[in-house]
């Protein structure tokens, strides 16, 4: 497998509004690669920098933000440096994005047909009829009943689940090589979610689509992702193959996150919430950002930001204490 996206030392900072102060770091030194046909999971709670990472890669960060590092797409273009026409050739065509909330990412006053064919005609140079045929095919793939009628309908005429599937169809319309999906199924029912996960899995297998899947739901990542990166407070704190992460994670935060989700084998056992809340990016503690909430924290944790170190082939963790070195100590 060849890497379609190679992100190195990605950083995102926000200049504080109306202040001359130092800019605030939202994403700090994030590196990863995504290969063709692979689903890479990006996990973490809200505020961990998952979405900002995605927006940076798409070149659609909000104003007053700066990026650093590189994100080389297909061995040539640095997504962070592209501007203007060069960016538009990649964005929406070779790299597409699906957002969490279809209600705010679809245009309320344009028909689904218009939104589904506009970029196809622009990027792929398709004629009206060809674009329409392709749109019908796409709607069928995402299982929208009666695709012909759907093309002439407006977003408000669909349920939330259907809107999300339309958004996915729009993202897939130009046959992208990389799909960045930010919580694509969070607003959906599990039955619909299962269908979408299967669709993504099929696209990866058949067409070699690479997916960067951002979600807080570790169950989804278990089902579909090959590898998972866990982010906390803007940094990657652990990365590994999915199976190893679910059963043999080494970072205390990953462990805590796993024990705070309900597990089918353990009904009625109390869930173990993580005490406290993640630090605000303006008040991140020195050293490990998770240390104030970590039951294994030692003095070393506050001294400096722990580096992501390779523990084994494909498994990296940023914890100087490494309390789970010899298996599960709890």
């Amino acid at each position: 497998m060849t890497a379609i996206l190679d992100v190195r030392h990605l950083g995102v900072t926000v200049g504080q509004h109306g202040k001359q102060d130092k800019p605030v770091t939202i994403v700090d030194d994030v590196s990863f690669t995504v290969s063709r046909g692979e689903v890479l999971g990006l996990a973490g709670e809200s505020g961990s920098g998952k979405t900002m990472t995605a927006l940076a890669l798409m070149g659609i960060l909000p104003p007053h933000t700066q990026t650093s590092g590189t994100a080389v797409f297909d061995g040539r273009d640095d997504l962070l440096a592209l501007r203007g026409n060069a960016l538009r050739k990649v964005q929406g065509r070779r790299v597409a994005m699906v957002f969490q909330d279809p209600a705010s990412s679809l245009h309320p006053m344009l028909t689904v047909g218009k939104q589904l064919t506009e970029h196809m005609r622009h990027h792929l140079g398709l004629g009206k009829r060809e674009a329409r045929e392709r749109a019908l095919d796409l709607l069928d793939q995402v299982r929208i009943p009666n695709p012909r009628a759907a093309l002439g309908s407006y977003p408000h005429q669909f349920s939330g689940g259907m809107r999300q599937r339309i958004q996915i169809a729009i993202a897939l319309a130009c046959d992208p090589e990389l799909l960045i999906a930010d919580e694509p199924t969070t607003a959906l029912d599990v039955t619909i979610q299962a269908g979408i996960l299967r669709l993504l899995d099929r696209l990866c297998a058949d067409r070699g689509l690479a997916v960067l899947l951002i979600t807080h739901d570790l169950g989804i990542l278990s089902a579909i992702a090959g590898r998972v990166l866990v982010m906390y407070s803007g940094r990657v704190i652990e990365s590994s193959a999915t199976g190893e992460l679910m059963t043999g994670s080494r970072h205390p935060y990953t462990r805590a996150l796993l024990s705070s989700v309900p597990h089918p084998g353990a009904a009625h056992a109390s869930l173990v919430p993580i005490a406290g809340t993640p630090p605000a990016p303006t008040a991140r503690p020195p050293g490990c950002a998770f240390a104030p909430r970590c039951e294994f924290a030692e003095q070393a944790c506050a001294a400096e930001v722990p580096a992501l170190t390779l523990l084994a082939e494909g498994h990296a963790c940023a914890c100087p204490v490494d309390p789970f070195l010899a298996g599960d100590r709890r």
Partner: protein
Amino acid sequence: MTVLELTDVEVTYQRGDGTPVRAVAGVSLTVNPGEIVGLVGETGCGKSSLARAACGLTPVSGGTVSFEGRPVRALGARERPVEDLGLQLVMQNPYSSLNPRRRVEQQVADGMRRAAQGRAGQHPGPAPHTVHELLALVGLPSETARRYPYQLSGGQRQRVALARALAAQPSVIVLDEPLSALDVSVQAQVANLLRHLADELRVGMLLISHDLAIVHHIADRTAVMYLGRLVETAPTRELWSSPVHPYSRALIGAIPTTASVGRLPEALTGEVPDPASPPSGCRFHPRCAHRMDQCQLTEPPAFGHGSGWQVACWLADPAVSSALASSEEA
């Protein structure tokens, strides 16, 4: 003793063009003190309509809702009778269900004042007496009392909403998607809190959620709803380990879990039909893999399948299952 009893409840809405839509089409359900009854189903199955009917926010078009043995009347222009204060509702979105212009203590104290007029002494468990006691009960520091909702996080607001519901010394709380606006680790905290309140204060809860994992985790009994009808009601643990109704099986099979790495969840085929024109016979038959001729003709009644377990499916009919068994032998 049952505190909340729904008998053959129907809720009918009028569409813009005058077509009646039966969102809830005959549901019977009971909630006992200290019991958490989970109600699960896909978007549009009528869960929220049932929740609103259960607390009198929406009038029922058929059947009865009785609370502590008295009928619950739909809310009108008159003030709600003080006897009904023991039936409380917590809504999905704590950002819109709290008043942004009043301090937490004022909002929580409202319920206490009215409860003191009418309901004192009827509460099934030990009653908290001050705002601070209530806040402590839901795990909030007493400084929270002086705050406005905008100064609180989502999890804290949902706790305030709970404290406000508890102020009226309720015997039943109806919770409509209480956790879906919260982050995973916070969900665990609030889920544990609900279980604790049910156990300690003997408050009965009707917990409506599309997050099956959370319901699995804290509900004593679970009811599965499809297109306005209950298809299966069973003790939670049994339902999860051996669901009988094909729809319950599909719903539970669609949940991705961290325990099954690399296995894609099963997708249910077809769409939820329009509730204005439900399918004949069993409402699930067009999507069911086990449908028989009988299913298209006659709606199955609820068959008993063990203690506290009811299944509305012809497969659970003793006559049908014995016939199936004998045909397999032959």
